[in-house]
């Protein structure tokens, strides 16, 4: 079951307008930069982007934002830390050109986990009594108040991996794991860009973070050179 694609462009070629896509990565760490660049070239529009943040550390998402490919974002930390350094997405949001839903980090990732696990929704204590709870159903369980939050199932997930075999079994590297596993499990079509691509049997079966059943496409990429930090975008993208 060889899931390899020849390059990122081929792996994203069929993504239609209006697709929802989960992007792994936590700021600069573990973001699928090659697949994101390929999607900017491919040009699909009216996209829903599901990502920790949008154009803060994961600078490649600004290519999609600046191309006006993004219509909606679902994030837990959408903006630059300082309001004076607004990202291209924040500027478009301010002009009502795009929309954004924000969830606490645990709710954000649990929505994806629930979607992956075939659940419809879950109750969480996070956000009770805050803006996050506005308009949401609450329920007292064992004397404690919880919010109802719904599952999320993206059409696609873009994942950055360290080592992957041709069946799509994945090993992540250090904190580049972050949101990647649950995003991969939740999406209908999961595309993995991997710094290393090996034959089945070459990875230690005990070390697999993401079993291949959750992965549809794999593409080999170079190890990116990343400048750590979220204050300033690099010159070249």
């Amino acid at each position, binding site marked *: 079951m060889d899931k390899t694609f020849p390059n990122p462009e081929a792996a994203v070629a069929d993504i239609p307008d209006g697709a929802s896509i989960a992007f792994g990565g936590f700021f*600069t760490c573990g973001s699928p930069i090659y697949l994101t660049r390929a999607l900017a070239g491919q040009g699909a529009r009216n996209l829903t982007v599901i990502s920790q943040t949008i154009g803060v550390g994961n600078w490649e998402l600004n290519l999609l934002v600046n191309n006006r490919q993004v219509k909606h974002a679902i994030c837990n930390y959408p903006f630059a830390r300082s*309001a004076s350094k607004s990202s291209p997405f924040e500027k478009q949001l301010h002009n009502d050109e795009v929309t954004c839903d924000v969830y*606490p980090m645990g709710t954000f990732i649990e929505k994806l986990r629930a979607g992956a696990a075939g659940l419809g929704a879950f109750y969480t204590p996070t956000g*009770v*009594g*805050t803006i996050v709870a506005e308009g949401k159903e609450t329920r007292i369980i064992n004397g404690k108040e919880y919010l109802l939050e719904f599952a999320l199932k993206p059409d696609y997930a873009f994942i950055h991996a360290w080592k992957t075999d041709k069946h799509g079994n994945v090993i992540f590297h250090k904190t580049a794991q*972050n*949101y990647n596993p649950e995003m991969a499990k939740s999406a209908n079509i999961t595309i993995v860009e991997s710094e290393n691509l090996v034959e089945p049997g070459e990875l230690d079966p005990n070390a697999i973070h993401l079993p291949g059943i959750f992965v549809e496409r794999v593409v080999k990429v170079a190890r990116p*050179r990343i400048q750590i930090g979220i204050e300033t975008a690099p010159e070249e993208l």
Partner: protein
Amino acid sequence: MSKLGEIKGITRELIALRIAQEIPDGSYVNLGIGIPTLVSNWIEGRDMILQAEIGMLNCGPIAEGNDVDQDCINASCQPVTEVPGACYFSDCESMIMLRGGFIDYAVLGALQVAENGDFAGWNIPSSGRGKIGNIGGSMDLAVGAKNLYIAMEHINNTGEPKILKRCSYPLTARGVVKKIFTNLAVIEVTPEGLVLREVAPGISAEEVQSLTEPGLIIARDLKEISV
């Protein structure tokens, strides 16, 4: 207000040291951005494990030079080192640790803290960002941590108290703060109200009260902050 320039209290580093003293050995600890991060400078040799919400236990000091790995950062996007016993995991598992009650001590900054233990730390209404903002993991940590400590300056940049009867900014969580550590005081949140436990050297209880909106209960054994 004229006294503002004179009332300095202790430095941010010493607030962090005072908190490090308060956290017992054997604790799993999560530190937020700002003064809380400085607590990590005071735990060398202590039996404490730092959790980084990106997905790491035994997160070590900031990495420099050849120790920097682009795949190893903390939640503030700083390169970090591993200390022996480190492990990595997904953000989903990290949030289980935060929300599920596995973090013994969480230290967070705040914009406002109320006498009932509410606090606000993610949204400054004057920023113009409306209801959309950088919540990150703060709400999960706030509802799940066994002990939530706030580390902050006692008053804001314009000289207004940050410790209030009720928060006016959007909340991070309701009724979760256990203790507040500032440049002027250590204050405990109790069902009876805020108890002033310690004051900074050279600062009187009356001065702390004058910069705090709700009435403070002065502890019978009120002490000077000693670090």
